């Protein structure tokens, strides 16, 4: 039950590249595929994911460590974590609207979409089962968000190019996108021996 002896900085890079939440765990696929058609939206959604992932990693770490673990309620973590994520998104939406209308206009429509993004819940659960320390959890959450953002931007850029290429008509749209994601995942697999996350 001890935290892995990993420097949080190493963990940050591992989360971004070697165990990219999207391309090595295939989490958060639905919004990944549906939004990546447009680079601007992808960027907005990516930044929103970074924000929510970092904040909910931190909050859920405290809840797990000081409420769930002592009471032996590990089996409830799915329900509790998703509740916390939903509430975080709600509050974040209200606060952003108040302090920065321009940022709200850019992110606002994406924030509710993130509540049900499984990558967020995935990251929170990884943090729980790998027994990360708080600093590790924070940087892992942030790093996973950055990794997700990088991956969706890369895919959006590739799709912009693919759209202009002669793709067999049966593969147009989601078909070629899934194949592209598969190839990207294989490329990221090359990083996998370099660093470990647990």
């Amino acid at each position, binding site marked *: 039950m001890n935290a892995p002896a990993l420097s949080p900085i190493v963990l940050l890079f591992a989360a971004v590249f070697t165990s990219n939440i999207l391309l090595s765990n295939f989490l958060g696929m*639905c919004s990944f595929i549906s939004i990546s058609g447009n680079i601007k*939206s992808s960027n907005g959604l990516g930044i929103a994911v970074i924000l929510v992932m970092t904040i909910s990693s931190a909050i859920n770490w405290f809840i797990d460590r000081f409420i769930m673990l002592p009471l032996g309620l590990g089996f409830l973590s799915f329900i509790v974590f998703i509740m916390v994520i939903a509430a975080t998104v709600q509050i974040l939406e209200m606060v952003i609207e108040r302090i920065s209308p321009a940022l709200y206009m850019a992110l606002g429509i*994406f924030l509710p*979409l993130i509540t049900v993004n499984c990558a967020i819940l995935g990251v929170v659960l990884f943090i729980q089962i790998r027994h990360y320390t708080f600093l590790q959890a924070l940087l892992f959450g942030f790093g996973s968000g950055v990794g997700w953002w990088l991956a969706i931007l890369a895919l959006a850029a590739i799709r912009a190019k693919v759209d202009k290429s002669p793709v067999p*008509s049966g593969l*147009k*749209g989601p078909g070629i996108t899934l194949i592209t994601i598969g190839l990207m995942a294989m490329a990221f697999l090359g990083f996998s021996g370099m660093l470990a996350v647990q």
Partner: protein
Amino acid sequence: MKMSPEDKRASEAMAPGGISREGFFGTDNRPLPDIVQADEEEMRRRGLDFEDVAEMLRRLIKEGGRGFESPVTVDGKWSVTVEEARGLVPCPYRDGCYPKSRVVIVRLDNGLRLLTTDLAVHLCAVHHFLQGRGSPFRMEPELLSQLFA
């Protein structure tokens, strides 16, 4: 597949009672992205380009507008009647406003008829949306190819 927020917002605006009373989908209950994708494939199969079709329609509407609601014959091939009502109608994708027009294009030699609007032409050109089946403003790719062949 989940719809992007833009598509979702556009779909809501296109529903009956949104921007127009009848909506843009007619009797078609496929999601918006599916309609667009199916029509993109159909247009490609027929060798039609959305922008070219829209350019042609824009020219016909411009010529037809000279008749102030009475039919104008363009290039000896089409009869075009343009009616305009007061006001502008917004694009459901929120990228502009268009005159509330109602354009009837009839090809004189085969009698084929297309009902369209300035907004419908914009939707075709920029968003590749030809409207749902059963909508009075549906631009069936087959009809387009025969209308302009």
